[in-house]
């Protein structure tokens, strides 16, 4: 194991293990596992997609179906993110700044979507907002269509990415403390002014981080959306559903192209969110 050494001013000098066998052994196991499970398959998919150059990918992604899939994905994802951001910030404020009975329950509830299978999410929404669901008749009567249409997909997507904004903002809010907000109040600021001028700027980086995570998650949701969507090509297919549809029609190139597009977006979101996370650390 590593021999520990910290200098008198507290900085830690990372020293190598005294037993190189142990060190190299662990490193080999860890990196080997990651190679086989993560690196190799991802490299393979990129290779397969770009095998014949950029051309086929471009044409696969610019068909009218592909383009509408992209459009639908963006609409659904952005709507879900906007919803979750608004309510996410509100919930975070509630959890951190107020005490009320059931606060702990709310805290656990916020994490719920992470533990629920996306299929179950879809089912749950159908049972409530579908034609024969709880609110089904009310919805029908008012000429609305939620399930098998875009609003349902937005709800499904919002459900699964719900915790992300709350969980990025809440810890920063907690660490910041509410002294600044109290100071603003004593100086005469209203709640809204306090929020806009004091709270919001201080959580800006954490919020950006949460939004990026939320957006990435929303763009990539599959399970829940596949249940509530009508799978109408050109209308209610997101990119992920598009991949599924193309695979079922043995159109591998198109499926791979879309997959690689989403993979690139995922990696990009990792890089961007990393930067925001580093900034929240330095502020707090």
């Amino acid at each position, binding site marked *: 194991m590593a021999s*520990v050494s910290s200098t008198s001013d507290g900085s830690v000098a990372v020293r190598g293990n005294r037993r190189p066998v142990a060190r190299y052994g*662990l490193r080999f196991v860890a990196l080997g596992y990651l190679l086989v499970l993560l690196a190799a398959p991802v490299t393979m998919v990129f290779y397969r997609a770009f095998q014949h150059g950029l051309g086929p990918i471009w044409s696969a992604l610019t068909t009218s179906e592909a383009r509408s899939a992209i459009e639908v994905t963006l609409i659904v994802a952005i709507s879900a993110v906007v919803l979750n951001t608004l309510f996410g910030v509100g919930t975070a404020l509630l959890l951190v700044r107020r005490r009320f009975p059931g606060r702990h329950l709310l805290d656990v509830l916020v994490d719920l979507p992470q533990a629920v299978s*996306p*299929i179950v999410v879809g089912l749950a929404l159908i049972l409530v907002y579908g034609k024969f669901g709880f609110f089904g008749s009310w919805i029908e009567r008012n000429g609305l269509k939620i399930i098998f249409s875009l609003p349902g997909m937005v709800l499904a997507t919002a459900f699964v990415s719900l915790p992300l904004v709350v969980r990025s903002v809440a810890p920063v809010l907690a660490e910041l403390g509410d002294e600044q907000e109290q100071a603003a109040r004593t100086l005469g600021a209203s709640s809204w002014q306090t929020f806009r001028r004091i709270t919001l700027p201080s959580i800006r980086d954490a919020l950006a981080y949460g939004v990026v995570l939320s957006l990435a998650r929303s763009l990539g949701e599959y399970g829940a959306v596949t249940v509530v969507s009508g799978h109408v090509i050109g209308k209610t297919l997101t990119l992920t559903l598009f991949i599924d549809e193309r695979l079922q029609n043995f159109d591998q190139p198109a499926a791979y192209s879309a997959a690689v597009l989403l993979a690139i977006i995922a990696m990009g979101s990792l890089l961007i969110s990393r930067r925001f996370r580093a900034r929240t650390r330095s502020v707090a």
Partner: protein
Amino acid sequence: MTLYLSFLVLIPLGAVVWKSQSDGWSAGWHQVTSPEAAAALKLTLTISVGVALFNLVMGTIIAWVLVRDDFPGKGAVELFIDLPFALPTIVAGVVLLSLYGPRSPAHVDIAFTRTAITVALLFVTLPFVVRTVQPVLIELDRDMEAAAASLGASPFLIARRIILPNLVPAMLTGTGLAFARAIGEFGSVSLLSGNLPFHTEVSAVNIFNQIQSDNPVGAAAQSTVLLVIAFVVLFALDRLKRWGVHRG
């Protein structure tokens, strides 16, 4: 806020539970214990437990290597560990299929097998333990290890009696989260496993089929089972975290 949460989360989930007994509890139970559903559940739980435990070990090792070791490219590894989190599940399926499926250049074809389920679940649950253990490892008081060394403990003993006990709460949290994720996984598994009933069909797929074949009660009943399991895991984790806070 609570209204938003209710309409989005509570009411729909409540509806699932409600639906499973809309034809009576026994009908719901009958659905859950039907041969196909039971097989799917058994398969799901067994593989999920195995995967969670395996990634517990691997995740801890990876976290250790990321915190205590240094090598070229560590930054890239650090960044892309989270890829399974960020990748859409169906894309994960495509990714794994490209190397371990029918047209694999390495001639490793695990499609339509149970191994495929295991690999898919290992992939999607990879980051969980790493990300819960890593921060604890970083914050660990190195002086404790030095103190133990000065008292005569060998490096192995230090790892076992000093480091590991302090990591256990984080390890358990990560494993629980991984397990909860694994039992509900759909996209990657359905793509790789072929969803053969009684052989490679997991609960999530079975539920999906029930929805498609207009058997909402069956779907709801199985979903309730999954929900209950997930709830139990969540609450247990919450308890664990609070216990861990006191001790260290």
